[in-house]
Structures are given as C-alpha cells and as structure tokens.
C-alpha cells in the first residue's frame, strides 16, 4: 500500500507540473507581438497548402523584411478548415485582419458585410489599372469591390502527345466535333481501359460549366437572376457529353478532380481540362503533353478562370487598412507577380507582364493567352446551394443513368427558388 501511495503522489505531482508547464508554454506561445510604436502586425489567413505554400511563404517573408513597420503573420490552413472557422472567428472578433479566398465564395461573405469595400483603394491606388480585368471583375459583388486578386488561373486543355500519336491524330482538337470524335478514337475498354478525356464533376475545378457555356447555355444568366440550366442549349450540351460518357465510354463517370489528374498522369486519359498548377506534376511524371486552348464550342469559345482574392476585415483600424493596402500593392507589383508566376505557374494578375519576363516558365505565357477568353464561375451569394447542393448532384445523377431533361429541369427549378 505504501509503495502505491508514493506512486500516486508522484503521478499527481507530475500531472500538476505537466499542466502548469503546458500552461506556461501556452502563455509564451500566445504572447504574439502587438501593434506598438507605429509597428503593425496583420494576421493573414489563407489555404495555400500544397506546392503553392512555399512560394507564398517566401514572398511574405520578403515583404516582412522590406517593410520593417509591418509584419504579416500568415496562417496557412486547409481550405476546409479555413471555411469552417472563418465566419465564426469573424463573428466572435478573433478573425484575421486579411484573408484570401476563392472569389466563387466571396459573395456569400460580402453579403454578411464582414469585408471592407475596396472601391476607394481601386481609385487611389495607381497600380490597380494594370490588373487583369477578368480577375478584378471576379472580386466585384453587386458593383462593389470586396477583394484584390491573389492569383489568376485560366483553364486549358492538356493533351497527351504520345497517346494522340498512337491513335494517329495529328494535333489537339480545334472545335467540338473534332473534340468528340478524337475522344471516341482515344478510348478503349479491355483489361486496362483508356479514356479519351478525364472529365471530373465533383471536388474539382469546374469543367462541366465550360461545356454548357460553349454551347450557348449555362447554369445561371450573367446577372445571376435566372436559372438557364433548363434552356435547350444547356440540355443539349449535357445530352451530347453524357451520351459520349455513358455509351462510348470516353470518360469515367462521376470522378473527382484528383482522380482525373491521376488518370492523365498515368497516361490512361488522353485529355484533361485543368489549371496551370498541374504542369509541375505531369512534367515530373515525364508525361509528354501539350497545352491547347479549350476547343471552340458551337456557340462560343470560352474557358473558365479561377481567381483567388484577398479581402480586409471590416473591423480593421485605419492603420491596419493602410498596412493591408501596402501589402496588396507589394503583392500585385510587377516583380512579385513575375516571381510568383514563374514558381507556381499561375498567370500574373497584371496584364503588363511580357512573355520575355516569364521565359523561365514559358507555359505561363500560354495560360496568359488562354485568359483572354476566360470568365470566372460566378453564382452569387447562393454559390454553395446552386453548385454543390444542386448542380453537381444533378450531373452525378445523369451520369448514373437518370434522364437528362427532367433531371436538369428539376435542378433548374431548385436553382430558381434560391435566386428568388
């Protein structure tokens, strides 16, 4: 008994010491530098995980070094976590001073007035006129600017030169009819099947909307007031492509973006519509690929561009806003953008960067070209309801065998009910 008493005592003491130690370390860790003597610290949240992270970190470090009065305290977290905690944090006053998010999501937040309108920044900041118009447009919600672009990524078509050569196809398709017939020629079943195209529909950069747009249809109209998903053009686009997938097996059904990338990388899919971030991986995997504009559609020639933008917390003090604007200027300065583009493959947010300045990464210039025919995927404040909760499940059902017309019609009604 005596022995065990000592043991228990020791254990208790260790426990208390441990807890006290933890609390002390915690206290130290939480004591972050506060604004004092003209020095401003800005907390900055974003989700630049993966290969983009190191470049973003290096640029922020450079800013901190060259701006002794401002410190950017950046937290990179997975986007899931970011979206889970951003709004509660902003609501409880522990949110970041600046943050970056996909402009698809921006209207849902702008509607709640958590971000500062930036119209005056755009007016008084000399450099903003050089920003790509498509990127700036993506940060505008009902005529008010809520963000400044961080990156800009038009989609292109990746095509596998080896597989094209094997199928005796000279080059990438230029229009839909070539695209479709090439996709069929490049597909075969058997022990280890091959697909003409890896076309993802969930957890992916949106590709299906491009097909709707190019056929003259879409999901919502340009002013985001009306659903056009049940329009004849939209229905015909989905009918044509879903038939090719189901009947001719040109693409696996219902795959994610990551699956599509794997298939292209393993050379089991001959084409994929994707953003500039994929180049590094495919080059490393020694895939012999080319980049081409998304083939011209029957009605339009258009691709999608993904834009991420920074915004300022509406509760920030004037001094913090000024510091944030200094950071925005740095980020979108020519030198920074060239550096960022060369390392990540993203297109510079400015239009005055020349191909010669990007020669270290010549693919960037191709994507920059593609950006001339690109629009962001904007669904307004109902983005999640329309895209994730209605449109994606509808296309999943169709590829699982549901009839196209009635499925799209009921999805369209649903979307219209969100739009009011």
């Amino acid at each position, binding site marked *: 008994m005596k022995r065990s008493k000592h043991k228990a005592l020791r254990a208790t003491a260790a426990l208390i010491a441990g807890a006290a130690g933890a609390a002390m370390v915690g206290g130290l860790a939480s004591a972050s530098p506060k604004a004092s003597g003209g020095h401003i610290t800005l907390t900055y949240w974003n989700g630049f995980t993966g290969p983009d992270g190191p470049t973003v970190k290096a640029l922020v470090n450079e800013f901190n070094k060259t701006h002794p009065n401002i410190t950017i305290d950046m937290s990179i977290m997975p986007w899931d976590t970011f*979206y*889970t905690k951003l*709004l*509660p944090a*902003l*609501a409880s006053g522990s949110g970041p001073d600046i943050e970056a998010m996909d402009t698809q999501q921006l209207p*849902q937040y702008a509607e*709640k*007035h*958590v971000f500062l309108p930036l119209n005056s920044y755009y007016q008084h900041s000399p450099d903003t006129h050089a920003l790509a118009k498509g990127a700036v447009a993506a940060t505008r919600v009902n005529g008010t600017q809520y963000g400044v672009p961080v990156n800009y990524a038009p989609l292109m078509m990746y095509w596998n030169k080896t597989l094209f050569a094997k199928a005796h196809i000279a080059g990438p398709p230029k229009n839909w009819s070539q695209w479709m017939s090439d996709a069929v020629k490049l597909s075969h079943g058997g*022990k*280890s*099947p*091959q*697909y003409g195209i890896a076309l993802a529909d*969930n*957890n992916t950069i949106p590709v299906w909307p491009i097909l709707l747009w190019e056929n003259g249809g879409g999901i919502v109209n340009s002013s985001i007031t009306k659903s056009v998903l049940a329009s004849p053009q939209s229905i015909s686009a989905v009918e044509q492509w879903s038939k090719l997938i189901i009947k001719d097996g040109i693409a*696996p*059904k*219902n*795959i*994610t973006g*990551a*699956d599509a990338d*794997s*298939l292209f990388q*393993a050379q*089991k899919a001959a084409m994929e519509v994707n953003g500039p971030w994929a180049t590094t991986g495919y080059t490393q995997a020694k895939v012999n690929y080319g980049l081409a504009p998304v083939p011209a559609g029957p009605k339009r020639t258009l691709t999608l561009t993904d834009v991420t933008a920074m915004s300022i917390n509406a509760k920030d003090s004037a001094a913090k806003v000024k510091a944030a604007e200094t950071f925005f200027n740095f980020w979108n300065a020519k030198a920074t953008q060239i550096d960022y583009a060369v390392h990540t493959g993203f297109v510079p947010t400015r239009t005055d960067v020349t191909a010669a300045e990007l020669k270290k990464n010549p693919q960037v210039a191709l994507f920059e070209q593609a950006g001339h025919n690109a629009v962001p995927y904007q669904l307004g404040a109902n983005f*999640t*309801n329309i895209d*994730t*909760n209605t449109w*994606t*499940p*509808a296309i*999943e*059902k169709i*590829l*699982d065998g549901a009839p196209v017309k009635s499925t799209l019609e009921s999805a369209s009604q649903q979307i219209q009910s969100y739009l009011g």
Partner: protein
Amino acid sequence: MATRTLKSRLWYPWATKQRRRRTRVAYLFMAPSLIVLGVFMFYPLVRAGWLSLTNYSFFGASRFIGLSNYGHLVHDPQFWRDLVNTLYYAGVVTPVSVALALGLALLLNRKGLPGRGLFRAAIFLPAVVSFAVSAIVFRFMFTPSIGFLTYWLGQIGIHVPDWLDSVSLAMPAVILVGIWKNVGFYMVIFIAGLQTIPKELYEAASIDGATRWRRFSNVTVPLLSNTTMFVTVIALIASLQAFDQIYVMTQGGPAFSTETLVMLIYRQGFTNFQMGYASAIAYVLMAIVLMLSLLQLKFFSKRVVRY
C-alpha cells in the same frame, strides 16, 4: 456458475450519516470531470439548443423563432433521405464491426499464438491512421483502371466496378472503410475485457468438466457482457454519427447517396451558414441516438452480471 463468487452490498441504507458522507465522497470523486464537462460540453450544448430555436447564421440579428426549425425539418426531404442513409450505414456497420471485433479478439487472445502482438498491432493499425490519409489511399485503390485494386484484379480478369463513383455502390464502399477503420479498435477493447476475466473461473469450469462451448457460454459470455454492452453502445453511437471518412471520401456524393445526418448538419451549418437549423437537426439526431442507446442499455442490463 459465475455467481459462485458474487455477493455484495456496497452501502448501508440504515445509516443516513454514512449515506451523506458517501454522497459527498462520490461527488468529490466526480468533481473534476463534472466541472470540465459542465464548462466545455454542457454549456455549449445548451447554447446549441438555444440556437436551434433561432435563425442564427453567424452575422446579422438572430431572431427567436420557436420551433419553426423543427417544423421545417419534418418537411425537409433532405432530412428524411439522410436519416435513411444514416440508419442504413449504422444498421450494417454496428453489428458487423462488433461481431468481427469479438471474433478477432477471441482469436488473438489465444496464449502461445506466434506473433500475437504483431497481429493485434496490424489489425489495430487502421485506427491509428488519419482519415485524410486513409481516404487518399482508398481512392487510390479504387481509381478506375489505375487503382492498384482495380488494376490487379483487372489483370486477372475480375472487373471491379467503380465503387466510390456509383450512386448504388458508394455506400457499401464507405461502409467497408468504416468497418476497416474501427474493427481493430473494438477488438482491443474486447481483448482488454477478456484479460480481466479472472482465470480461476475457467479453472473452476475445467474442474467441473465443462466443454469448451460451455466455458464460452457460461464464463466468457456473461463475464464479457459489460464489455460487449460498452462496445455495442459505442459502435452504434459512432456509426450514427458517421462523418469523417464519408466527408473525405465522397463528401456525401454521388448525388447525396452517402450523405449522413451529421454531414447534413455540417453542410447546413458550415457551408450554408444555417447554424440554427443545423442545431435543430443535431438535437433530433441526439434524441434518436439517445433513444436507441437507452434501448440497448435496457436490453443489456437484463443480461449483465453484477457483482
């Protein structure tokens, strides 16, 4: 047979002074837990309960709207669809995991089994791997034509359907991963339970000439009943709250075929910002779980051996 050793009275009802002291001791023992639970569980839980009566959505004024969230829920087809998915998931995962775990525990509790520790560790391993990583690995196994499962089975002529991407097969796939992830965890609990069965009971049974089957049904089953009850209740609660692997593997898709109630709560609360409505669904789910668990506890309490 087990009752041979049992008899006890723990407290003495004739002494109220004694009884008061005992109550004080009991509450002192529980004080640290109750304080922590009170501050970090019950307070937020009550707050969430309050939210379920409002239209709280993080920003802007939140208004008391009485039971309208609950009224809305009754007519929400998403709720019923996800309830069916949840019951489907739990209805398969709970019994299969518990039975498999018990079987494996009995197998691996055998003394003198070569490499016993390694086998246990191997089967426990999935519980240690994060869901994010398991999801990547499983997606990789099932990727059409290049996943290592689809590829190698394809090479020997077995066609593996594209499980995760099919409306009817995604749920079985998610169920499989749910069982894979937890069976080792439950097995370890069963092994710990088997370890605490006093050995002299088996000895006594052997002396009495009991057969293996009789030893199992007369010693192991009743003495393991506390553990079995625990595992079954925990497994049911966990499977009714299935979220993690579904979230990372299918996000509830394709076409909501794997969306469970907790996924719906997450979607309503964190992507649609309808925190009030999400809390209402959570309270209903809690009521369902509570009801099923109490039924289970009742079922078991008739069978549990008490000393």
